[in-house]
């Protein structure tokens, strides 16, 4: 998000982003994306070495990559969030076995929390009470 909040332009952008965020499981998708990215970052073996190993080595890259894609799809295609979040949680748990103990646990945790948030998200909810009070004041 651009920080400069003085011009009307950036205010509009902020509002647009807020509305965009309100219509999708934003944190769920973001955490799942970050989890996938973190696991990929912990894997630095050259592709040549991975190809030596074959399928098992490939799965180590395949699962976090698909995690990352699921996270992005939750953000940009929230209508299908249930499927993506179910896939996301299975992949997150799978990375424990295939990818450096789930990116040394960090990526697994991010992915699992993100998937659960996306799964539990519902559109069109009543505003929080805190928000109500502020609007009335």
């Amino acid at each position, binding site marked *: 998000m651009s920080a400069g909040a003085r011009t009307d332009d950036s205010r509009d952008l902020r509002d647009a982003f807020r509305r965009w965020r309100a219509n999708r499981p934003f944190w769920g998708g973001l955490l799942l994306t970050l989890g996938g990215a973190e696991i990929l970052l912990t894997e630095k*073996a*050259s592709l040549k*070495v991975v190809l*030596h190993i074959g399928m098992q*080595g490939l799965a180590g890259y395949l699962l976090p990559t698909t995690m990352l894609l699921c996270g992005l799809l939750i953000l940009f*295609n929230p209508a299908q969030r249930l499927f993506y979040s179910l896939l996301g949680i299975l992949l997150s748990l799978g990375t424990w076995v295939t990818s450096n103990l789930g990116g040394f646990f960090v990526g697994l945790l991010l992915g699992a929390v993100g998937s659960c948030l996306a799964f539990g998200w*519902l559109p069109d909810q009543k505003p929080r009470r805190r928000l109500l009070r502020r609007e009335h004041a």
Partner: protein
Amino acid sequence: MASSPDATASNGSTPETPESGSAAGGQDRRGRVRLRRAAVMAIPATAVAAGLMIATAQGALGVQFAISGMPFTVTATELNGTGFEQFGGLDNMAEDSPNAGDTGGQVLIVTSAIKNATLDHLCQSVDLGGTNLLITAGSGSDKVQATDLTTDSTELSGNASFNNIEIGNDASTLTKAGVQGPKGVFSQQADTVRIANLRQTNYATTAGVFKLPGLKLRFSDQGC
């Protein structure tokens, strides 16, 4: 489900909910995480995650490692393996890697491949600057088992003995561990290998499946 085509952040065209964005109508209705709904997934997921960790710690489940990038140390009091290959090679670092120094981003390494390996008192440590990430396993009666273990080492020491060793093969003709190196490179292979007091400095390790009974992962001031 009335979903609009994929919205992008820049133009802000969102799938409109009926009352969203009505400035005069008071509050716009936002999507929100319902705790109970999230718990439906969170509880079984936590149970499965706990099960995976317990299974791993007991050595029932193999864990695959594919780490490298920074050099790290692996030690074991004893390594026994069948199907051993060794050949030279060159590893490339990522473009503009901070670890490159004056090496031009390339490291000369020895690739060792072992088809099936058993390691006693395995210890692996990565120097993170100030602290070490230390992983130990196989200290009890169950030993660490690995299949398709491939290590790119810059240093390797220990007391080794080989059975049926062939030295001087072309690296592309190796057969014992199912891995081939580049053509025209010196290599050696053996049916079995036994190394006592193994100590390796590895630049890149890829392994097939690791079974790690008695796994302990922690930060420590001292490496292996």
